[in-house]
């Protein structure tokens, strides 16, 4: 994979067009490479919008996390 190919893939990843899973299939070996690419290109870590087939499972996850944090905060 050329440096240009890598840059293109990292840009697609930052835009949310492709996944880390897809990057791995295309030759990225370690997530440090991805973070490095984002840093070098001045791009942001892609934060997932609340969409897709797992919205319900994610909402359950957020509720469970909130419950855990609330439980932890109790004296």
């Amino acid at each position: 994979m050329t440096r240009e190919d890598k840059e293109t893939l990292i840009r697609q990843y930052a835009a949310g067009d492709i996944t880390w899973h897809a990057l791995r299939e295309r030759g990225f070996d370690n997530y440090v490479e991805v973070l490095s690419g984002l840093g070098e290109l001045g791009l942001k870590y892609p934060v997932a919008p609340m969409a897709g087939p797992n919205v319900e499972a994610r909402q359950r996850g957020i509720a469970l996390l909130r419950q855990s944090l609330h439980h932890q905060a109790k004296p």
Partner: protein
Amino acid sequence: MSRVYRLIVTDTSPLITLAVANELEVLLRPGLAIEIPDAVYFEATRVRTAPGASRIGAWINDHSDLVRIVPTETGIDQQRRLEEGRPIRGMGEQAAIEALDIFLTKNAEGQALLLFEDSDILKRRAVVDERVSLISTGDFLRELQTAHLIQSAEHILDEAARSGRNVEKQREAADDAEAREALRRQLRAGQSDEPGIQG
């Protein structure tokens, strides 16, 4: 909470992101026992000179009461593949499925919270088991920010990308034998210091 809860790390990326940002401690804030499948641990730490890798190992050792590496059949297969020079890419995810099955089989009433990387969580098949919930690294950090447990989710993610640039420069292929020995040490430590099952 009387049920049994687990936070299962499904892939290397959340671990590496937080390690590179030097923020692994945030994973402990919810007070949930954490399980890291052996193949995920190995994938995340086999580049031994990367600061993220050494931080992950040290963090697990420092919190062996809450963080456990889960031995899986996939992990054994991963080691065999390495010895035979075959690729091991993506085996962490397979090991995470196995770790989830082990947890749910042992704890019929258990609740598993699976930590995913943001881009991957959008493309997963729908999770229908009510005992299984998902959270992305971004969701996780945003909730901590809302609870005033961290200053800024964005700062942590930006810091990971900024530091990643420096980390990559130090990257060097790991010596497999040494990395395997490190995994064995972690597993032995986990077996002798099993965390409590209480959530």
